[in-house]
């Protein structure tokens, strides 16, 4: 099962490598990873998606908590939450395809952020599944490049991951 885990991490040199190292060392998967400092510059917030049964996820959470630099860990997928991913996508856009792609972008509420003579750069955000669906919807169009930020997320309501 896919899980979204959020980690509050001391913003120390090497702290990210401890988290990433833990996953490879213990044979856990990381499907996506995003990390950046928070409003408190001594802390980073890291969000990762992984897969595993309850036992595996329990171990992952415990092992993460055991890292000295980890301040807090939550499994966002345990509760109602909001998750977003941003994608930039360069696509060949010429001839009839140009209008077709534009329509598709509108339907997915994306934006065309760069227009070249034969290319578009599209920006689109949402849940990962929506991003996947957009790529699917482009059909025959020639995708030149895709870059995705990885997922980030927050819990709904008043609950928050804070120290």
């Amino acid at each position, binding site marked *: 099962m896919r899980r979204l885990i959020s980690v509050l991490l001391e913003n120390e*040199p*090497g702290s990210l490598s401890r988290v990433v*190292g833990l996953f490879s*060392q213990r044979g856990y998967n990381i499907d996506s990873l995003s990390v950046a400092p928070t409003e408190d510059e001594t802390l980073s917030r890291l969000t990762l998606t992984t897969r595993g049964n309850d036992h595996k996820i*329990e171990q992952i959470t415990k092992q993460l*908590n*055991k890292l*000295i630099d980890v301040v807090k860990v939550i499994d966002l997928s345990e509760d109602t939450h909001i998750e977003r991913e941003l994608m930039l996508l360069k696509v060949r856009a010429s001839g009839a395809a140009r209008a077709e792609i534009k329509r598709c972008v509108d339907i997915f509420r994306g934006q065309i952020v760069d227009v070249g003579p034969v290319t578009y750069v599209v920006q689109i955000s949402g849940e990962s599944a929506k991003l996947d669906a957009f790529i699917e919807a482009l059909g025959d169009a020639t995708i030149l490049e895709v870059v995705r930020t990885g997922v980030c997320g927050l819990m709904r309501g008043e609950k928050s991951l804070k120290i």
Partner: protein
Amino acid sequence: MELLSGGDILIRALSDAKVKHLWGYPGGAALHIYDAIFRQDKLNHILMRHEQAAVHAADAYARATGEVGAALVTSGPGATNAITGIATAYMDSIPLVVISAQVPQEKIGEDAFQEIDMMGICRPTVKHSYMVKRPEDIAETIAKAFYIASTGRPGPVVVDVPKDVTDPNNKVAYKFPEKVKLRSYQPTTRGHSGQIKRAVNLLMSAKRPVIYSGGGVVLGNASEQLIALARQLNYPVTNTLMGLGAFPGTDRQFIGMLGMHGTFEANTAMHHADVILAVGARFDDRVTNATDRFCPSAKIIHIDVDPSSIAKTVRVDIPIVGPCDVVLADMLEQIESAQLPTDGPAIGEWWQQIDEWRERHGIYTASRYTPSTGDNIKPQDVIKTLHKVTKGDAFVASDVGQHQMFAAQYYLFDKPRRWINSGGLGTMGFGLPAAMGAQMAHPDATVVCVTGEGSIQMCIQELAACTQHQLPVKIIILNNQALGMVKQWQDMQYGSRYSHVLYEDSLPDFVKLAEAYGHVGMKVDHYDELESRMEECFALKDRVVIMDISVDHHEHVYPMHVAPGSMRDMWLSKTERT
């Protein structure tokens, strides 16, 4: 405020962290630090002959005392040599601080001479690690390192110190922090009272209970509480390899070690148990055999200070996160104050059953191997003789192999911290430096290294450091002319095809070797002289003695789990299985 250089600060901070002995080996990047050591006399530095051994000795010092061990190595090869030692400590959760020197910061990343990414290379083998970037940060980092190493589930911490940070010309104010606080690290100090209550209720209702206690009881200084609880309940106790001595080996309630080479009665009792109280143990694969067949009818209570140990390999019914001593004391308190009774008749029957198992196949009720005769000395008899001659009161450090298992089975440890072995990593070469660490901790005690002719050659160079630092350890080589444990597996699983476990007449003359280092060597190949020669050996109080004892080449360690299988599936001898 006093102004000191980084090198001086480092050494002062180690002293202020209560380090008495620092095990190490110098080199270029560590020169400023070594100069600081030279100019003081509080901290005793012990020059070893290899960084691996320096770390093992510091580790064993910690095991023998409960204090934090400390080692110092130079950058590059010094740091890489230390890794085996650090990993050994990590796997057994030993409190240890290792200082590694590093090339100057402006050179980091340039593949400078003797540069190695120590932070990266040690990462999977440490509880935590730091690189110090400014002399102002040294004292606080050292204080944090010792705090982390020694609290919660203990473990090794590496502090990497670039050379420029210890520059003698850069002096800054020194202050050792009185207290350390880390917002991201707060080890549990008490067990959950509701869980403890549930555990006590389950425990009192048990009809076939077993207390399964591990290295955490030794590390957590909970032996006293374990003994009190076990006595109050009159339940059988088994110890893991790492837990030996936490419950007295000669006690009636002790049913032996459990696991791969555990006793018949311990493994069988575990299999049939209805309630297991696991304390400071981690259900590792050398204990459980196949986890899906592990103790099918047992409800399991698991006490551990590290939540990630709980339900890692085996499902647990009542988890209790907390220090073993505090939780056990709380449990005992509840039982005593409410005067809760155990199921007397059921426990009586359980003991009858266990005694019957002991009589049937127990290694303490009768000899389960053909006895020694003439020039065929049995390794088991060497350990029994060692126990007799040292009155069961020695510190026994061990290497890895058959000799280790024989020592674990036959030297009945009555006190914690007496049995010092590499259980988790299984590091050959640990024994001799470990014995040195224990001897430094207890200068007047009898310290033995039980080893094989294979393992001893992995850190043999430390015989020189024994001379230099007057560490009169006694080295008992169970010489079976082979990498015996590997050979045993080749016998059992590979049709006795002895691939690279024999030395073809290349073994050194250990007597001459001992003498070359200025020590005493003895060769024993007759059983009749074993005890008298051993008496002689231990009478030489201030000498290092190597006893090269020829033992049966063909002996196997039994019982041995049949794998994959359940706890009760064991080979009892070469021909007999359960």
